[in-house]
């Protein structure tokens, strides 16, 4: 069971889009200050758990990666613009990221596998994604003020550029 918990914990490494969105979201909510961190983390935690649980109810055949990368482009743009976002906006962006990543993080399915193992994998994913957002949020909180927050604004443009690059690579012929 611990093997599948680890499998779930490192699930975000299997998709570049997840890493880009999680990093961008962490930077964005850190940029908003302690209020943004509280609202953003709470919203993200609730929706990532919901999204993960939804993977047990149905499977969506949609281009998760494209949606996530478009979301990353938007988040990177907000980061670069250094806007003072209202609470509902922070919560919405975090919720959108949480629910999309959650739905796109269905655990490995082996016919006959016990449900407990599946939920161990989901728990690992929930823990790692929340930890990653939190870990990125902390330095972002420190960097939001020095030099008018230019470092975060540059990182925001990198998030957007990275997402665009992955998006282009996805559609390029092999």
């Amino acid at each position, binding site marked *: 069971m611990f093997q*599948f918990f*680890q499998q779930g914990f490192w699930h975000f490494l299997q998709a570049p889009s997840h890493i880009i969105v999680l990093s961008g979201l962490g930077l964005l909510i850190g940029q908003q200050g302690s209020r943004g961190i509280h609202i953003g983390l709470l919203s993200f935690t609730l929706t990532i758990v919901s999204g993960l649980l939804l993977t047990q109810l149905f499977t969506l055949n949609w281009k998760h990666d494209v949606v996530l990368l478009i979301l990353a482009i938007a988040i990177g743009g907000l980061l670069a613009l250094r806007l003072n976002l209202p609470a509902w906006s922070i919560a919405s962006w975090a919720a959108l990221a949480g629910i999309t990543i959650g739905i796109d993080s269905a655990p490995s*399915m082996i016919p006959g*596998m016990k449900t407990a193992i599946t939920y161990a994998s989901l728990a690992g994913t929930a823990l790692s994604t929340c930890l990653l957002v939190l870990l990125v949020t902390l330095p972002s909180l420190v960097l939001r003020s020095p030099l008018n927050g230019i470092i975060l604004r540059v990182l925001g443009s990198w998030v957007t550029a990275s997402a665009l690059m992955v998006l282009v690579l996805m559609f390029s012929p092999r």
Partner: protein
Amino acid sequence: MRLWRFSASGFALWAVLNGPLFAVGYHYQVEVTSHFVEDSAGNLGSLKLSWLYDGPVSLLLFDDEMSRQGERAQNLAMLADRIMSDLQEYSYYANLHVDGVSQQFATVTDYKLGLNKGKRLKLDFTLPLAQPVALAGKQIEIKWWDPNGTGALLYQSANNVSMGSVKANCNIELENYPDAEHGEVAQAARFRCQ
């Protein structure tokens, strides 16, 4: 403070060592053996299948050490029920085409799960077709495909495909797709019967 630093260092070490190991997801392999069963009219009615799971996934699904004496058969039966119930959702991973026409399957009711001497799970079951189909003069193609990208079901050789009375009149060939990624078909078995 020292405990916190020790815990953080331990976590970082675990992360560095384990992260790459789990970055590719869980995958397992199944060795497939199939026997095409004809009815009295010479039509294909069902497939008798034998799936031999690899060692690690066998241990994951059924820890024989945990089964107390006398409960092993019962636990294997319960596992078999779960496996067949889950497989039904994915049409038993089977993609059978006769002259390009996709064939549908009925619900499997005849199945048995056991452990071989190497503690590997062996699932034997009969996969009935929803409608019997004539094979004579037809091109038959069968592919095994896990849409979740977790399992790789493969014939080890053409000897793992048998036909019954019409075998002498059938040419069987296996085509492997080495560039197939997880979630894609890795092998196709094709034959034409006279």
